[in-house]
């Protein structure tokens, strides 16, 4: 556990979270959420929880972003009802 490294990751984590919440475009929000997932993965790897970091890298930063994008591209601005 290296403290400066921790602080850098945590600062980026908060920045990524706030931007992902505030960005208007959903596609950009999904991409920034992937960055958030990857930063959490870095944090866990740095804390020594390598198995959890691996899962986060594959699921959080990888598959869930693909599923978000697949969903966003299939939604429309207006309801068809």
């Amino acid at each position, binding site marked *: *556990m290296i403290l400066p490294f921790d602080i850098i990751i945590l600062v980026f984590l908060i920045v990524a979270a706030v931007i992902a919440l505030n960005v208007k475009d959903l596609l950009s929000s999904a991409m920034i959420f992937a960055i958030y997932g990857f930063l959490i993965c870095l944090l866990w790897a740095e804390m020594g929880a390598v*198995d959890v970091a*691996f*899962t986060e890298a*594959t699921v959080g930063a990888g*598959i869930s972003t*693909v599923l978000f994008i*697949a*969903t966003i591209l299939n939604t429309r601005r207006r309801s068809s009802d």
Partner: protein
Amino acid sequence: MNPKFFASLAVVITGFVLLYGVSDFPGFGDPRSPANAGVEGGSPSASLHYINEAYHDTKVPNIVTAVLADYRGYDTMFETVVIFAAGMAIFAILRCVRKDEEAVVAPPAKSSIDGDHNRIIVGMTCRIIIPVVQIFGLYVIAHGHPSPGGGFQGGVILAASFILVALGSNLEDALSRFSEKNYLTLASLGVIIYAGFGVLPQVLGRNFLDYGVLQKLFLTDGPEMARYHSILGVEIGVALTVMSILFAIFANLSSRGTLKGGL
């Protein structure tokens, strides 16, 4: 007094309560916390037992794998079932066969991983990357014992390789390699493999998921190596379910349940 004010008030109060709760937690890496050390005056804690005994019990160097697939195997089995159930729920909600309406909306399938000059760079890159990704996925599943990884991560990587086929060419191309019938069969098979490793010891007269007794089946020296091999079998079951269900979720989400067109 708009709704946003009450929403932020609720968020702030919840956050304060959570932070107040966190203040009772032991410090990070505190050797005297209940999770890390023996409870004073009581029996040694569970984690100490795992750290000391996991290698002797199962011959698995990675304690995380030993705990997940052996000591806490019951929990992991139902995690697999949860993934299976989630896939079935998405399947039940999204999957539909709309013939007349969707035939107009869905773009005609023309590109393939071998043709279509517009996507030749993406297609060629995928052709090179996908075999490497799949072999890495198999490596991660097989090396869950000595290194980080295991069935769940390996299954996700394998699913990602099939999703890459769908992104690099189109969904029909991916489905011709991993059809709906196949992924539904493999998803069920994964759960059945895991549950089978639980039922087999029961048939041999022991508890559910008590792998040690399988030494008669694997012809190994002792119960340790039987547990080692059973963990690998269980990981393969998890990997099959995760791979199939994640690809099924992607295929249904990206095509609105028609399995045509894709992204």
